[in-house]
């Protein structure tokens, strides 16, 4: 497809600018020639060209509204339309963040209620809604851990991270100046308790644990894990990326977690927008409340206001208050589902994942064969051995069957990993059809491996040369 720049023709435009209703001044006089730019080379396209360009681009994109999107650890559930309508209400979109609190009582109440609802659902003392995404929430959470030990006068340079962890975990630890040490998993996919015992010293600030972990398995020894970490004065951090697995079933706060970050764009159904915006609220136990980012909302019945008067805070992690409009969608989702709806969402998510696990077990290697939570992880090892078909090939072939592929090559401890997260909003018929496709591909891998290796065959472009993209990077178009 042509680039927008290639459609450009001098003299065309889409958006016009109103004539000035105030006196026109000489720009060079008021600004000074030396501060003015020499050229402005943006595309010049008529509105119809612009609309067709982006509409055609959209047709080369796959979203949840088009089909099944079982991308493991990303919780690509259906994004209810009512949430979009609510978020588009002018009262929510139109307010300037510097408006004084009198103007924003509706927004403040919404955010305050959201913090309380999240605190109830997750069993934490308090939440901040400031972080813009999950990884931003991780960074915020680890900063609070750092501050906690700083204020106790303790030097604890190490953070423990399981070998199953998301890549953001070690990066978040490192960005707060911690050394990270990898904690091994045991044979059943949980924390290796002996290894944890040997690593957990008074030099360790804490353990960043995802529960259920990225194998989709709940940490059976969670009580013991928390006890070991706490016994040495450490803190237990929870990566809430997989929170869809336990809503209404258990609470991280009760399990012993001191900090947890959420991803509203996963668990609470806000659309991910092709890579954001997300929203990454962070919940903390009583011991960490004082370190939450500022400003925080204070309720002085019946009104609400912002306050930055929290001397122990880590400070700010972004401007203003958070991805407010995303929070509106997630709040709407929680209120519309309520306690029954959220619990049923978790139950159906776990049912769906176990159903897929059972149906595909005969055809793909299942490295950890036990009841899973919201996702299941297979390995393409058998296919590699049989015919040299890799997981990446299977993923690409799924595209031809009309599916977004699962997460692949993650978690790192499973070779040729295929991580499937169906979510609760998919029907049995959809899961059956997907499993049929996976089974057909397993068969094809044996009988006609080349066809799988050539996939996808149905897309506007075939497999792209990533090596070329990295070796000769072209990230901005240059005029020929």
């Amino acid at each position, binding site marked *: 497809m042509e680039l927008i720049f290639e459609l450009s023709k001098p003299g065309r435009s889409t*958006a016009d600018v109103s004539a000035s209703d105030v006196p026109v001044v000489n720009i060079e006089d008021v600004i000074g020639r030396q501060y003015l730019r020499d050229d402005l080379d943006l595309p010049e396209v008529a509105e119809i060209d612009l609309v067709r360009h982006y509409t055609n681009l959209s047709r080369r994109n796959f979203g949840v509204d088009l089909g099944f999107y079982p991308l493991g650890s990303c919780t690509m559930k259906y994004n209810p339309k009512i949430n979009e309508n609510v978020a588009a209400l002018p009262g929510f979109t*139109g307010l300037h963040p510097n408006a004084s609190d009198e103007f924003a009582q509706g927004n403040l109440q919404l955010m305050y209620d959201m913090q309380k609802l999240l605190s109830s659902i997750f069993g934490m003392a308090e939440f901040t809604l400031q972080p813009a995404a999950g990884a931003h929430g991780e960074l915020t959470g680890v900063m609070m851990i750092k501050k906690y030990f700083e204020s106790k006068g303790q030097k604890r340079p190490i953070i423990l991270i399981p070998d199953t962890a998301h890549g953001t975990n070690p990066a978040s630890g490192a960005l707060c100046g911690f050394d990270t040490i990898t904690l091994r998993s045991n044979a059943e996919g949980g924390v290796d308790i002996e290894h944890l015992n040997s690593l957990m010293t008074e030099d360790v600030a804490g353990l960043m644990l995802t529960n259920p972990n990225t194998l989709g398995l709940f940490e059976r020894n969670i009580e013991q894990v928390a006890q070991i970490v706490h016994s040495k004065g450490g803190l237990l951090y929870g990566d809430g990326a997989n929170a869809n697995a336990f809503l209404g079933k258990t609470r991280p706060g009760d399990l012993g977690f001191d900090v947890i970050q959420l991803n509203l764009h996963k668990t609470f159904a806000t659309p991910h927008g092709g890579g*954001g915006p997300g929203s990454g609220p962070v919940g903390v136990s009583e011991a960490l409340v004082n370190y939450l980012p500022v400003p925080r909302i204070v309720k002085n019945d019946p009104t609400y206001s912002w306050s930055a008067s929290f001397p122990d805070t880590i400070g700010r*992690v972004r401007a203003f208050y958070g991805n407010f409009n995303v929070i509106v969608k997630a709040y709407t989702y929680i209120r519309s589902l309520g306690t029954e709806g959220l619990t049923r*969402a978790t139950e159906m998510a776990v*049912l769906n994942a176990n159903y897929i696990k059972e149906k595909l077990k005969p055809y793909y290697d299942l490295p950890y064969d036990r009841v899973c939570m919201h996702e299941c992880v297979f390995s393409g090892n058998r296919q590699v051995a049989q015919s040299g078909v890799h997981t990446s090939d299977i993923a690409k072939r799924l595209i031809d069957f009309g599916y977004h592929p699962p997460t692949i090559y993650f978690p790192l401890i499973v070779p040729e990993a295929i991580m499937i997260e169906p979510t609760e909003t998919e029907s049995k018929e959809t899961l059956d059809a997907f499993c049929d496709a996976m089974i057909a591909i397993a068969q094809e891998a044996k009988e006609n491996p080349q066809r799988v290796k050539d996939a996808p065959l149905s897309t506007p472009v075939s497999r792209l040369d990533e090596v070329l993209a990295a070796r000769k990077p072209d990230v901005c178009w240059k005029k020929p």
Partner: protein
Amino acid sequence: MDYCPHTSDDIAQMQEAIGVGSIEELFADIPQKFRLKQMPDMPASLSEQETLGLMQAMSRKNIMPRVTLTGAGAYAHFIPAVVGHIVGRAEFYTAYTPYQAEISQGVLQAIYEYQTMIAHLTGTEIANASMYDGASAMAEAAVLCAKTSNRSRIVVARSVHPQYRQVLQTYCWANGYTISEIPYVANGQLDVAAMQRALDDSVAAIVVQSPNFFGCIEDIAPMADAAHACGALLIAGFTDGTSLGILKPAGACGADFVVGEGQSFGNPLNYGGPYLGVFAAREKFLRRIPGRLAGATVDKNGKRGFVLTLQTREQHIRREKATSNICSNEALCALAAGVYLAALGKNLGKLAALNIYKTQYLKNKLLQLEGWKEVFSAPVYNEFALRCPNARAVNAKLRAEGIIGAYDLQKDYPELDNTLLFCATEMLSKDDMDRVVEIIK
């Protein structure tokens, strides 16, 4: 509401296929003592109609302003109708990060086009797919400079947005870096002599903003020269993105990184978010910058296509060795920005000029009020600071009329008492401005 399509028959069949007698058995790994019977303190579910009613009532508790006179990090601009229509296409907004390029060409190409427009606007060679917001983009640029130079001090202008400096402070504290602040001079621009004195070989980067928080346009080139002379890098922010339609961008004046808030480009005010961090840089930093990058390549038939590229920089591959942990960015906001910029085209220059006309009009009108004085003499884009007899009383009067007043600079600059920072965009009509002056009078 319930978005699960499962019938009781479905559930029974699926349980049988799995080999369990009840849903509860699937949760057996959760130790019994931690199992919830019921979620505490949670409201019951609502119908769609009830949900809408609840949320409409909540939105109405906000007071919708007749006029907004503040900018200070977020800017009220007109958004052409096409932006919402494009961004509202479910193929875009219900997609995840484009990990599978063959079915994500739409967002990948749109982001590649966005990157190209941003690099041009900022006068640099490259831009990434977006950061969380302007403040975090600035902080990440500073951390990157320190990490890759093994220098531990960041020098920042006091005339940089106060919240951006707070975010910078948080990120630098977490990484063990220190910050020195450079004052401004009487005309509102950076104190270049003080900056020179602050520079030594411990400084990784100088951080400035132009237009700065007071609206004043800075002279970037000498700052870039001074930074480079001591082996440091220059990070230049901006305030309102539309200023780039008319002002010489910092990248064309020698800045190494240009970072700032991209909300002005087609994104609603949304009470502070979601916005998007613009992150642009000189080409030589391409392999070190944080965030996603869409790159052009070819498929096996030689056809042009786009992928996420240089991923070895990123957290999911480098893990603890990554210079940033950013994963999700603000792709949909960047898409909106791209559509907005393509819709405006060269009219972005006209729009910027209109902002200047409005600003000059409002400033001159306010200066006719008794006791009102200009605080800084440096040229401004669409924000300006005025000293007045009683700043609080002015904002109280405006508030009573449903107008969001100007930003009170004393909050962050104790020396700027009774000083208000106004912003005039194309959203203010002459009548609005005349009325504002009448109310203040």
